[in-house]
């Protein structure tokens, strides 16, 4: 799965979870940039990403994620195997 495919899939998920049809995924995107991105929708997002990509994040990977770029890189790394 290449980076663009991940971004496209994430964009659909994020627009649904954060209820924003105009949301555009960028690598620098963080919760500060999205109105409905709070702790509980963050939790939902992680669960939905895991389900949608068929992966399970390690605790260290989750704690290390600071923006959407980190999320994309981690998904890409996990989908290699």
């Amino acid at each position: 799965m290449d980076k663009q495919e991940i971004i496209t899939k994430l964009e659909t998920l994020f627009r649904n979870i954060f209820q924003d049809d105009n949301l555009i995924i960028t690598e620098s995107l963080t919760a500060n940039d999205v109105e409905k991105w709070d702790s509980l929708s963050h939790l939902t997002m992680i669960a939905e990403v895991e389900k949608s990509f068929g992966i399970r994040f390690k605790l260290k990977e989750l704690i290390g994620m600071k923006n959407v770029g980190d999320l994309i890189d981690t998904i890409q790394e996990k989908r290699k195997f």
Partner: protein
Amino acid sequence: MISVRKAELGDIDFITEGIVQAEKSGTEILGYSKIFQLSETEIKEIIQQILEEEIEGQEWYLPYFFIAEIDGQRAGSLCAWVENSGGHPGSLIKAQAMAYFLGEKWHNNSENIGLISRINIPRAAGQIQLECIYTHPNYRKMGVASALIEHAVNTLQETTGANTAAIQLMGNNHAALKAYEQCGFLEARRSEDLGDSVLHLLPGSFKIEVSKHLHG
């Protein structure tokens, strides 16, 4: 005589109980149980796992906790930290840790989650945050909470230079609000009030943030 010390690994059971009781806010409603549709025991296990992992930057980080003792017995606990000191909001770090330990155990109820999000008050970066303030029932009305608050605020002000301390609580918890006002905290922000219809899910229908400016 109340003494206050930093928490240790052996305090985790006491702290977990304190977190749960503080979350219940004087009621029998544990919001986490309702949101994730898990038992109180399952929620306590997740809190203990997060405390044991020592994940910095979020409220359930063991080194952020203080313990009050009376005659060598644990009488109360609280956690205190400076929000966003690592550049990432504590609530999101806690959500990341919870996501890991909840795994596939929880059921995503977007309606409940949406409701709770509506009474969320984002914490201000750089402020001392006080949370999970708990007094054991045997030591109520003895000044335990105020001793913990004073010690934690003084310690963090000295080590970080922060000039404001804040506490968030359920607006319906009048006893806690009165106690914090007696410590010099005043209402600074208030969330939307969701009304009585959410009281089967949450211990209160709105949140208040009280804060105190600290003199140098």
